[in-house]
Structures are given as C-alpha cells and as structure tokens.
C-alpha cells in the first residue's frame, strides 16, 4: 500500500508522480470556474459544458481574517485567506510564513500555493494528509 498522503480537500490532487495541484473546472459556455469536478454549471446551468483544468499555483490575496478564537484544539492565531488564483478560481486556506497581524497582511499581495503536511492531523485510520497553504511571494516589479 502506498504511503502517499491523502488530499485534505476534494479539489486537491496528489498524483502518483509529479507535484500536487489544485483542480478546478471551467464552463465552456459562460467561463465560470469552480473547484473540483462537477457535472452542471452553477452559473448558467449548462450541462455537458464543464471542463476539468489544473488551477494556477499563484494568486493574490483578495480578503482575509486573522482568527484568534476557533473550535477547541485548533491552534490560533492563523490567517484565513481568500485567494484569487491567476487565470481563475478562488480558494480559501491558511496564509502562512507571515506575522498574523493586519500590518503584515496586505490586500493583493502575491502568494504562492504550497503543499505541506496537514499540520500533523491524522484520520481515524491513522492516515496522513496533504494540504495546501499560501505563502507570500516577493513583489515582482
């Protein structure tokens, strides 16, 4: 049996070979982008119009909250970030490698999607998981 970690989200692909990536689908009729696979477009209702595609590993910070209180056992503070991926698709995840203060978290900051162990969380069968996170990218000029 493989020791490959399981994906922490339905739209995270952990292939046998090669790097993990986020998977989305785009409607060929109205261009709406969704996370993961789907049969019918939630925007235009198009059927048979959804095309699976690999989403970008880069994006910009659209919105966020700095979470100081969460459910019992969840380590705080952390930055809950909404990121617009380059080329389409919006995902939510933790913004890491940044000081969790409003001064350090800046709208539109470019971020890289990185794939790391799911904070040591195991499921009831003791299996490991792989999650995605965002890290700040240096501003390119």
């Amino acid at each position, binding site marked *: 049996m493989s020791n490959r970690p399981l994906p922490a989200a339905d739209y995270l692909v952990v292939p046998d070979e090669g790097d993990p990536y986020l998977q989305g689908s785009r409607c060929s009729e109205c261009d709406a982008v969704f*996370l993961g696979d789907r049969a019918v477009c939630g925007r235009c209702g198009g059927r048979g119009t959804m095309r699976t595609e690999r989403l970008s590993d880069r994006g910009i910070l659209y919105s966020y909250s700095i*979470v100081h209180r969460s459910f019992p056992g969840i380590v705080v503070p952390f930055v809950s970030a909404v990121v617009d991926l380059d080329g389409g698709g919006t995902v939510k995840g933790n913004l890491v490698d940044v000081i969790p203060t*409003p001064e350090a978290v800046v709208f539109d900051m470019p971020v890289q999607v990185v794939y790391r162990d799911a904070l040591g969380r195991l499921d009831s069968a003791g299996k490991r998981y792989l999650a995605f996170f965002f890290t700040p990218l240096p501003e390119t000029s």
Partner: protein
Amino acid sequence: MTDAYVVGIDMIRFGRFPDRSVPNLGAEAALMALDDCGLRIQDMQAFYCGNLGQANRMVGQRILKEIGQTGIPVVNVSNACATGATAFREAWISVRADLYDLVLAVGVEQMGKGLLGGPGGSRGIPKEGLLGSGTMPAVFAEAGMEHSRKHGTTFEQFAKISVKNHHHSTMNPKAMYQVETPLDTVMNSEMISYPNTKLMCSVNVDGSAAAVLASERKVRELGLMDRAVRIRASVMTSDPWQERDLVMPDVNTCTRNAASDAYEMAGVGPRDLDLVELHDCFATAEMLHYENLGLCSDGEAGRLIDEGEVELGGRVPVNVSGGLLSKGHPLGATGIANIHEVSTHLREEAGVRQVEGARIGLTHVIGLGSCCGVHILEKAA
C-alpha cells in the same frame, strides 16, 4: 388581492432558558401575540412555525399541543438565520392568496453558547484552521474585509457599529444585554476573528417571537386597524452565482436584489424609511448592508456610522432594538423579532427609544447559504 396586516405581534425577552423546551418558548410568544390583538388560537386558520435547531421535530405541532390543538394546517420552516422571516412570509403569502383571513407565524430558537459554523468536512480530518476558517466570525470578517479592501473601511468604524447597537439596547427591556460599551471597550474586547472582537459578534441566546397576520377585510371586521401594521412588501431571494461564493458566501447580492424588489413592491425608496432593523450578526455585516439596502451609496457606509446618521435621532436609525449584537440572535426567532421592533415603533409604543413619527420601516435578515428576507412595513392608521 387583499392587503395583509400584522394585527398582533410580540416577543419574549431574549435570554438563556436551558430548563425550558423549544415548543414551550414558542408557545409563550404565540400566546403573547394572540393577546396583543385579543384573539384566540381557535381564530387562527393556519400556522407557520420557524425553527432551525429542531427542524425535523415538528415544533409547530408541539406548540399547538401546549396552547390548543385545533387541527389547523401547520407548516414547519427552516431557512438558516432567515427562518423566522420565512415563516412570516409564508403566512403573508397565504393571506395574500386569499386562502386564509387569520394566520399565526412563530419563530423560536434555543441555542448553546459558543462559535457557530462547522469544523468542515464530514470525513477525513477536520478542516478548520487547516484550510482557513469556517467559523461565522471569520466568514463575516472576510466579508467585512472585502469592504475594507474596496473602500478603506477601518477596524474602528466597524467597532462603532457595535457601540451604537449596544447603546440602543440599553433602552430596550426585551434585549438580552442592556449595557453601554464605549469604543475602547469594544476594540479592546477579546479578538475573535479580526476585525470582529467579541463585542462585535451577535449574542447566542434563546428566544421566540410571534405574529398574527390578517386580511384587510378581517382587520376591518374586527376593528383592529388602529394598531395594525400594513405589510407593504415581502421579498425573499437566494444568492445568485458569484465568482468567489464557493469559498466566500455572498450576503451582498441577495440583499441588494431583495431590497430592490421590496422597494419596487412597496412603491417606496430608501429615503422614505424612518427606521431599519437589519441583520447585524456581526458588526462587519451591518456595514455592508447600509449600502446593500441603499441607505447610502457604495463606499459611504463608513461615513454613515462616523456621522451618526444611523443612530437613534439620526437620519435613518438602524437597529434601535440593539440588534443581533445586543438584543441577541436566536436564529429562528430573529426575523419575526425584527418585525416586532419596527411594528412597535409604527404603533408608537417603543417608549424611550421611539423613533419619532415613524411611518415606514424595513426589516432585513440573511440566512447564510444564502437567503435574504426583506419586509417593508407601514403604519396602517
């Protein structure tokens, strides 16, 4: 089509009643609303009951077991935080459709303390704190920060909303809390999810509210027009597709659509409103809805709170009841409690918090997921 009116409406003081049952709380409000118009359960031809926590447990029928099993049709509804407004609207539809002349709507909820929202995902591992946050304070913080991003709205401006609503609640004997919270107290209370501090989060409480709705001919026949409240508009929307709404629930578009439909139905505009009770589940949310409801133009919400236009005595007082932030937010009851507040002002029975000369008011609730309910109410007499 007949007009529909509120003839009886009331709510219990919101609080924590762990020793009582959900039907028992709902029954109390139902009897209060019936007493408010001098009618009996035997006069009601149908009953619409809103509750979330026991949505599959026939709360409406269990209420009738406490106050009179008359055999009328009972419809139990559940629509997140718009549950009470949905029950009210179903009652309104039945009167407008000429099915019934007198109907009862009840909203009731019993809640625990603590954070709302799910840990995320039913299988595998918990997603909270791994793939961002799904707690309600964080979700509404992210919605508020979208406003900051667009308009430069500050933490202090969000906090001022909480100062205002807590101040209003000191004049409302039915509010859970009646405590002044100055700006530094709000800003320095425990940070839950930036920019929402603990005092910028609504209070989880138990509560119930109820209304008796009547057709125009019935109001006249019973001689109840003096204190009646005319329902000028009742609108419900769901959230149309938005590019980010898979990860960022959109409470804006459904509110804008509902408000615009409601103004059209009522034949009034936001400038005609004397007061508004809107869905301040978090301070960040109230800021968004000033613009969503057209109380000001886009980008002006921060100025509205800075200049006191939404305080009691201001141009358009918002959440004079104390709002969900201080009156409390028993999910299923909130939509009818908001209608109770506006009706109380239209009846000139709001005591020290009375909005002078109030003739038209608007209520608004959002159920995340999402749905929006808007009602426009007018003094009948």
